[in-house]
């Protein structure tokens, strides 16, 4: 008697686990396809729906209720550094947009604001950074503009475009070749 109860206790978690198993249902045509291949010698044919209705007009075929097919779920969780990077990117874009909105809508002098918030030394560092960058960009732009009309300028621009196209094509070809070789 004790052994019987012990066995039932042991079986209880197994039964619970079996109930929790996912339900896999075959396709609606599966049973028909299987039965179409089954041939029992000497067996009487089961009447199809039309034959059954001829015998019993009120009869209707039972509605098959099947659960939807299980869809494999992909884990879309990003790594923590990737989420931090995304958050930092969103924050930086937000700060930039806020600064632009402050200047555009309220006519705030951003340099005075930054100077008051972060101090004069930070302002000097940022100003020198901006000056260096603008000098470099303007020099490059003026050189490009000066040579744009000349034959050498046009040839350089054309070769740049050709180089970009050739490099992209070479990378594509290399990717395909190395993938096939691997």
């Amino acid at each position, binding site marked *: 008697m004790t052994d019987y109860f012990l066995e039932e206790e042991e079986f209880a978690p197994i039964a619970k686990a079996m109930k929790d198993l996912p339900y896999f249902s075959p396709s609606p045509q599966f049973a028909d396809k299987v039965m179409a291949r089954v041939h029992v010698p000497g067996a009487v044919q089961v009447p199809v729906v039309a034959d059954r209705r001829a015998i019993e007009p009120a009869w209707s075929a039972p509605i098959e209720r099947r659960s939807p097919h299980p869809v494999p779920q992909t884990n879309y969780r990003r790594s923590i550094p990737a989420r931090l990077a995304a958050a930092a990117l969103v924050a930086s874009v937000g700060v930039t947009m806020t600064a632009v909105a402050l200047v555009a809508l309220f006519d705030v002098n951003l340099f005075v604001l930054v100077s008051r918030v972060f101090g004069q030394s930070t302002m000097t560092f940022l100003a020198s950074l901006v000056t260096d960058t603008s000098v470099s960009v303007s020099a490059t732009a003026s050189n490009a503009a000066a040579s744009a009309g000349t034959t050498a300028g046009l040839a350089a621009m054309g070769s740049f475009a050709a180089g970009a196209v050739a490099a992209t094509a070479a*990378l594509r070809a290399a990717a395909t070749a190395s993938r096939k070789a691997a």
Partner: protein
Amino acid sequence: MFGFVIGWLIIIGLTGFMLLAFGADKLQIVIGTMQKGIGKSLGSGLLGQLAILPGAIGVCALLAATLIGIVLIPLGLLAFIFGVAGMAMFGFIAAVTMIGAGLTAGSKRDETPHGALLRSFLTGTVVFIGMWFVAAMFGRVPLLGPVLCSFAGAATFITATAGFGAVLLSWWRGEFKQAA
């Protein structure tokens, strides 16, 4: 011009050998990302380059949240620039290795995967540095020099951008973490 090319050859060679020695698995991941789609890598690289300036502003804004952080803004910017440059160099070496692997695809002379990777890296580096050597050789020729330099610059820019994008994509997908 030759000094510039030799300097870059030394930098790429040293960084490449270090990567092959200590991070060959990471290099394979980035190469795999590029093999799955160059267009995606190139697009991600261009987007990443556009995000460098907002990223630098973000670093400044995040550091400015604390008093100590304000003092550390120049150092933070320097670290950010080094980080971006390192990722670009890593991506460029991966792209160069992939080009080398494409060129030596028919070769079956390597007994180990690391040997094949080394051969691919050396072949790709020779191709790129050779291209810059040719540009340097004809650098003083009036019309040909700028044309060759422009061609080599564009090819290097596209390769570095695709590699940078592949590094960003692999990082975003968490592939480095999965491999570790």
